């Protein structure tokens, strides 16, 4: 293989630009496809697609599915599937809606608006999601019922448990602090967005530097310095560009006026305020970083991928693959609960049909993002990008005015096509 020969001599002249940067080709392909999609929609809509406002909306619409997609990566990597995530989201949402509007304020007497309510609610919701997920995992891992069946049953059960608990009623409005996790109701504003962006930048650059230092310490080949420089520049550009775009979306004047009047003030002449990074997006970024660390740098992550690549080998290496299955589904359940926070906060209430069909969106996001259903392969950033692509496709078509049935037909076709391209790519590169 030419690649490994090239590795022997770091200064190999025939290495291409992309190889020298050690970028993931599949990721580049996805980013390319995403860029073409966005630019295409922007042209067709006459520049309405790539506005700060629409990009802001796209990101907040993607968060809920993207959070669950990161967990679905682990489920699919270990050759399982979870069809119940949308229903589990609904049950968690119902539990949290009742906790914050009924149980804590009235039954436990905290009173509406008590500062503890949102936090107790979220912790309790995550606990419920984790327990349900762990129960699924126990059925799959210890009782060896196929995950497809357990979670298909779960889909019916949890969707209707949520319904039963709330008697089918829509519950709202939710706690104001809780609703800050929904998107537009909770953003960092311009200054804090820049602070967050710069912190992220510092962390990314430190990561690059630490990795290089560690490789040098062990005497491994490293990229040439200029390549590190290009990579650092690309990352910086992406982070700061993202913050700049979100900061360019300004709060509408009418709304500013209302907010000022609510505090008994008048809006000063020429005053503007930017939304900046939504808290929900920040949450997604934290989850993405955490899940990536989990996948790559922890034993649990290593075992997940080992068990996905060869379950027998994992077992023979002393890994308790049954318990591992419980942990994976418990994590999936916790992420469903976090998604439920974001989704219900975005809608400002809990409704019966929350998260309907999310299981399909989440699985599609993971698969479009390069997670192999045969197990063993998948990345967190791929799944998030997959969720973003799906959401862009859907919003873009809506903006262009494509009929609803056609939208779904296109999304379905794209899913199948994406998997076909992935298969062809793997065949060509010899990866499995």
């Amino acid at each position: 293989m030419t690649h490994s020969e090239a590795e022997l001599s770091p200064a190999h002249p025939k290495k291409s630009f992309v190889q020298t940067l050690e970028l993931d080709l599949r990721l580049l392909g996805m980013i390319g496809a995403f860029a073409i999609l966005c630019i295409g929609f922007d042209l067709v809509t006459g520049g309405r697609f790539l506005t700060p406002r629409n990009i802001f909306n796209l990101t907040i619409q993607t968060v809920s599915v993207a959070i669950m997609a990161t967990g679905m990566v682990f489920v699919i990597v270990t050759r399982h599937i979870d069809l119940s995530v949308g229903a589990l989201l609904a049950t968690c949402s119902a539990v949290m809606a009742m906790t914050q509007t009924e149980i804590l304020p009235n039954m436990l007497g905290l009173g509406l608006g008590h500062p503890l309510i949102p936090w107790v609610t979220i912790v309790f919701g995550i606990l419920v999601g984790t327990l349900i997920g762990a129960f699924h995992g126990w059925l799959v891992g210890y009782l060896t019922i196929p995950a497809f069946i357990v979670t298909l049953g779960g889909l019916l059960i949890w969707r209707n448990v949520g319904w039963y608990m709330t008697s089918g009623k829509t519950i709202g409005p939710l706690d104001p602090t809780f609703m800050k996790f929904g998107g537009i109701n909770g953003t960092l504003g311009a200054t804090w967005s820049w602070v967050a962006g710069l912190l992220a930048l510092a962390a990314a650059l430190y990561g690059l530097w630490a990795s290089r230092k560690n490789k040098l310490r062990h005497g491994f080949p490293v990229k040439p310095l200029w390549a590190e420089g290009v990579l650092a520049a690309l990352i910086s550009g992406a982070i700061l560009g993202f913050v700049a775009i979100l900061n360019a979306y300004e709060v509408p004047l009418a709304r500013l006026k209302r907010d000022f009047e609510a505090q008994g003030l008048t809006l000063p002449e020429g005053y503007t305020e930017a939304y900046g990074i939504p808290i929900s997006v920040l949450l997604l970024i934290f989850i993405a970083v955490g899940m990536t660390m989990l996948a790559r740098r922890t034993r649990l992550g290593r075992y997940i991928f080992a068990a996905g690549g060869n379950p027998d080998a994992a077992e023979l290496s002393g890994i308790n693959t049954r318990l591992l299955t419980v942990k994976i589904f418990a994590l999936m359940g916790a992420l469903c609960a976090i998604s439920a926070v974001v989704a219900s906060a975005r809608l400002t209430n809990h409704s019966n049909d929350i998260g309907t069909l999310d299981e399909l969106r989440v699985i599609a996001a993971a698969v479009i993002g390069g997670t192999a259903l045969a197990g063993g392969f998948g990345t967190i950033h791929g799944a998030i990008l997959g969720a973003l692509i799906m959401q862009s496709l859907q919003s873009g078509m809506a903006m262009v005015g494509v009929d609803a049935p056609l939208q779904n037909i296109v999304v379905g076709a794209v899913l199948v096509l994406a998997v076909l391209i992935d298969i062809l790519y793997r065949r060509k590169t010899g990866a499995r």
Partner: protein
Amino acid sequence: MIDRTGTPLVEMRDICISFGGVHAVDHVSVNLYPGEVVGLLGHNGAGKSTLIKILSGAYRMDSGEIRINGERAEIHNPRDARRYNIETIYQTLALADNLDAASNLFLGRELVTPFGLVDDDAMEAETRKIMARLNPNFKKFNEPVSALSGGQRQSVAIARAVYFDARILIMDEPTAALGPHETQMVAELIEQLKAQGIGIFLISHDIHDVMKLCDRASVMKNGQLVGTVDVDKVTDDDLLGMIILGKHPGEQAEA
């Protein structure tokens, strides 16, 4: 000469296991002394792999007893076996194809940083060291093992078994896919490990290898033990007779 007056390192007594009516291992007893290599021979399906998988914790025996250093050992899963410092090279290699050599070598026993995160660079450095001893031509450290040749994969499996200070080493056809030079290196490795007092069960179909490397040989046929002989006291043909006809060399003389 091996000193067989003390307590054996491993004793497997009267081991039975059956799979749905098939007696894969049927009242088999074998033992192993420190610094000894015991060959396990037999036709395909004789029950060799099944017997050693009981010792390595992959299977649970139906009846019988395992003693290690004279004490009864409870081995219910591969983790238990590792606690007794039993390391195994499986016939199927048991590698996770999607992970690289270092991740496979340290699977279940990762090196971690002070923060408890897996330290891939340190593991790769250790892997490079041990592979330099076992298979100096090995260079594919950053590729999943699915991209390796059969022999390279086998080298990874061998490296994993010898890296962790085994006291009891089980090798199920460790050189089946290796070239002559690599096979020679494994032979040398076995000599070194023997000298360190490690006990080795070596499953092989190559009678020459067994004659050269082993001190004793136990032969199985149809799940049963034909017998155990001192390799020095028998010929190739004696061993062949045991494997094919199931006849103990002593019986032949009497007949």
